[in-house]
Structure formats: C-alpha cells, structure tokens
C-alpha cells in the first residue's frame, strides 16, 4: 500500500467516525420524547435532504458530466415511478440508473 493513500483513508475514517461517535456520546441523556430529540430529528432529515439535493444539483465525480436538464428529467421520471409503484423504493432506483445510462448514451 502506498503511504499517502493509507493516510488519506485513515484521515477520512477518523473524520467520519468523529461525527458518529460524538453523536452517540451526546445522545446519552436525551429522551425520545424530549423537544431536543424532535429538533435533532428535524435537523437530521433536513441535512439529509440538503445532501441529496446537493448531490443531484452540484454533483462531484462522473455525474457532473451529465447535464442539469438530464439529471432533472431522471429525478422527475424516477419520482413518477415511485408514486406509480405505490411507493416501492427498488423500482424507481433501478429505473433511475437505466434511464440515466440510456439518456446519456442517446444525447452524447
């Protein structure tokens, strides 16, 4: 293993574990019926939604090469599949991958 990659992995895992561990420590005295628990629940959902929106609108990596309109079309069609399939999670997910691959190869 090259040293820089191993250090990068260790630093990445440390940065990731820090948030998890601090969350586990600080949740010790919190009751599930408390207001602070409800607030953190809202924070968690909002943060996740922000992350998903950012991943779709400002992606990093290979997804960045697909245009905004293409990503937008895939999202809308996948949500339509989600509701048409009575809120099944697997069908729209697989559909999105196939749809994106087909659209990208069609419009390249």
């Amino acid at each position: 293993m090259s040293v820089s990659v191993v250090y990068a992995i260790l630093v990445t895992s440390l940065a990731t574990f820090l948030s998890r561990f601090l969350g586990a420590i600080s949740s010790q005295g919190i009751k599930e019926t408390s207001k602070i628990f409800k607030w953190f629940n809202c924070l968690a959902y909002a943060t996740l939604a922000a992350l998903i929106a950012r991943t779709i609108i400002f992606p990093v990596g290979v997804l960045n090469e697909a245009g905004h309109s293409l990503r937008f079309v895939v999202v809308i069609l996948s949500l339509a599949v989600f509701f048409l399939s009575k809120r099944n999670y697997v069908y729209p997910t697989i559909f999105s991958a196939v749809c994106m691959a087909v659209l990208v190869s069609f419009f390249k």
Partner: protein
Amino acid sequence: MINKKIFFKGYKSILAHDSPAIALGFCFVAIGALLKNLGFNIQESIFSTMLTYALPGSLVMAESLLVGASLLNIFLAVWFVNARLYPMAVSLFPLMMHKNQPKWKYYFSCHFIAVSAWLIMKSNYKSIPKEQRIDYWIGIGSATWSVAVLGTFLGFYFSEFLNKEIMMGLAILNPIYFLCMMVGASKTIQITLSVLLGAILGPIFYFFSPEWSILLGGVVGGTVAYLIGETNVS
C-alpha cells in the same frame, strides 16, 4: 452479549422487497470502480469502505486525492460533508438506549450510522422491544456494511466492464434511492417541512459556501421546520 435472534432479524431486514441493499450495493460497485481508476489496490479499496462506510465521504476523499489535497484538507472536507452523521446519531440512539444494555454496544455500533441503515431502523424500530433495539440495529448495520464491502469488491474487479454511461447510471442511483426514502418518510408536518426546506436551502447555501452548504441547509431548514411544527401542535 448480543441476542442472536434479534441480530439476525435485523440482518435479514435487507432482504425485504423494498430493501436498500440493491441500491447500496450498486453504489459501492461504483465506488469500487472509482477507487480502482484512482490507483487504489484491492486492499486499500476494501479497507476504505470498511473504515469509512459513507459514500459522500469516500467520494470527497477520492476527489481530494485527485487534486492533490493535503491530509488536513481531506479531513476538513470529509468532516464537513459527513457532519450530517452527528444529528442522525442523536436522533437515533435515544430510541435504542436501555439501562440493561452495555455502553460498548452503542459506541461500537455508531460506525453503522449511514443513510440506508438509519432509514431502515427509523421505519422498523417500533416493532422491536426497546431493550433489544440495539441488537437489531447492529444486525441492520452489519448487513448494510457487508453489502457495501461486497459492492466495493465487485466494483473493483468489474471496473473494466463499466463504461461512462453505466458509471453515470450507478452514480444517480444512490441519490434517487435516498430521495424516495425521504419522500416516503415524510409523514408528519415537521419531517415533510424538514425535507423540503433542506432540499431547497442546501443548494441555495452552496452559492455562498460549498463546504458549509449541507450543514447550514440542515440546521436552518430543520430548525424552521421544528418551530413551525411545534407552533402547529401548540
């Protein structure tokens, strides 16, 4: 120790008809292929998924290595993008805390905090007695973690068969899966507003500060949603 029956009940939850295992597995196939293209060997790729087990963090690390970022920069970039794990942990562990369970289980299992496992646990925890929820959680976490490691392994060895179109398909799969799960979880006014405001504010804050956009979008959106929800209840 761990209640095996409950542990395996949690482990098998990924076999459900709407399980995240397929989406999660394919996403890590993409990560495995990406890490190989970056020059990682198989040990480094597996080691990375086992220790990090967070897709956005792995992506940020890969991007940072590409541009030659320092270790401090990698640490800060990953910490910012994975800071969501803190409120996720605080909003999950109180549901599993029980005085009869040893503390080490909670500290050990916090490594399994990730969107897929978190959403499965949030959907199913009410069906498990509180004392046994931590064992159920460890089962879910072990299962999703195993899928991630297997996906990385497959992605690494099958990367030469994955062209750019397929890689793009695999890259959109994870956000779409999470998006559907978030829409599915939006059953109260507070959660619905949290999801909507987070999705709107996150990208808006990106124009002012890309690093802080997720955290700011989450804190502002979540707090506003909480306050509106509380006002409605009262």
